[in-house]
């Protein structure tokens, strides 16, 4: 599979703290890649690097290269807004806007200039169908998004990210605040989305990584210890630190 993301010797500092150390990797297109590792290992930091969310943290300094679709996303002529349209993100806590279900989805397309009502209707319906929420909300689109359950809110956030037609979807522990059934629904949804989108997920739930990702990267102390096919990494890891982590000997 073709890599869509190419990371080369990436070093990231939060002021004097060296959070990512010489990270290099290719992330394949239209596949699910999972980042795992103990707290503070750098996995979320790397995820946030992919749509420049770290720009908002003062004192952040980056060395090295992050290319998406061949473009260096940290070059001066890259617009962060355009980048975040291309690289959507879903967070740990569902964060719908205090608006209607419809307006949550239409918000992004409107921001990017879509005004036509029929076109917006189409985007809302398509996005909600893609996130497998349409059947549950199609008769209540004007209701507040805050009236939805946690699991539904998270699927709404996924639909909202999909509404601007991104290439890549970043998921930062997107199911850790959800109950098992909602988690299962999101996992099934992500499996379906991988045919159209590149998905990079950070998860503390190793079994989730094992269940749904095609490739897994194990981080420790800001470094990549091992990156491999998920099946191989969880059955015959090459590095003893990976084996120790996935076997619960630390972390």
């Amino acid at each position: 599979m073709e890599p869509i993301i190419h990371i080369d010797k990436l070093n990231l500092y939060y002021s004097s703290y060296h959070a990512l150390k010489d990270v290099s990797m290719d992330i394949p297109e239209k596949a699910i890649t999972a980042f795992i590792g103990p707290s503070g290992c750098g996995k979320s930091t790397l995820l946030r690097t992919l749509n420049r969310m770290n720009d908002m943290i003062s004192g952040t300094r980056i060395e090295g290269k992050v290319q998406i679709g061949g473009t260096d996303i940290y070059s001066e002529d890259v617009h962060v807004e355009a980048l975040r349209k291309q690289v959507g993100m879903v967070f740990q806590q569902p964060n719908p806007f205090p608006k209607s279900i419809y307006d949550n989805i239409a918000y992004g397309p409107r921001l990017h200039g879509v005004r036509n009502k029929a076109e917006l209707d189409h985007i809302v319906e398509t996005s909600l169908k893609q996130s497998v929420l349409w059947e549950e909300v199609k008769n209540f689109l004007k209701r507040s998004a805050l009236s939805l359950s946690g699991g539904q809110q998270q699927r709404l956030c996924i639909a909202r990210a999909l509404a601007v037609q991104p290439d890549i979807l970043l998921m930062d522990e997107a199911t850790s605040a959800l109950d098992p059934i909602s988690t299962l629904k999101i996992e099934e949804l992500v499996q379906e989305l991988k045919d159209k989108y590149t998905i990079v997920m950070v998860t503390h739930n190793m079994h989730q990584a094992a269940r749904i990702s095609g490739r897994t990267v194990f981080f420790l102390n800001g470094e990549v210890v091992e990156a491999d096919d998920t099946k191989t990494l969880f059955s015959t890891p090459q590095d003893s630190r990976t084996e120790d982590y996935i076997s619960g000997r630390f972390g």
Partner: protein
Amino acid sequence: MIQRKEFDQNLDELRHLLHAMGDHVKEALQGAVEALQTKNIAKAQVIVKRDVELNLMEDQIMEIGSRLIVTQQPVAKDLRRIIVAFKISSDLERMGDLSLDIAKVTLRLEGQDLIKPLVDIPRMAELAGIMIDESLKSYLDENTDLAYKMAQDDDEIDHLYSQITRDLHSYMIAHPDNVQQAMLLILVGRYIERIADHATNIGESAVYLVTGKRPDLNS
């Protein structure tokens, strides 16, 4: 995430049970062949009676292993440790059944004199006993070299079995009036040869445990 302490204690328990099953099988095989050599009916009966103990230990291994998979969701080598425990306990249980079959031959020959003193069968049983020890040692010590070495012992057992079969075929041609005992002794050779194959399987499981790959040591 695995609760390491409890998990490791249970893995130790699996190892102890497999070790105990191995000792049991070895004792049953040696006892069965001694009973055959000495026409000791009482000894053969004890072996038949005690086979149930092996089945109980196999059940215990299934119980502990299943519980660990359900409650701890192990991965990588931890998962292989349990899969291998299932596989080895099944091999050992089968080896126990084959030892029991040898004991039953002694019971069927009750009242008959042996057509000749047994030489190759006890030799096969002795080698199979060594293989049982080695197979379990290769598993317990995670020693893949020992597992590969056992494949050579198995070749010697196969050779002895061929020899027994040839000798007894000749005997049957010369003594068509006493085919039954010769047939039963060929079967005993076959049972021991199968026991050795199961020991080789245990060696394969040890290699799988260490490397994650399944070799074929029986070919």
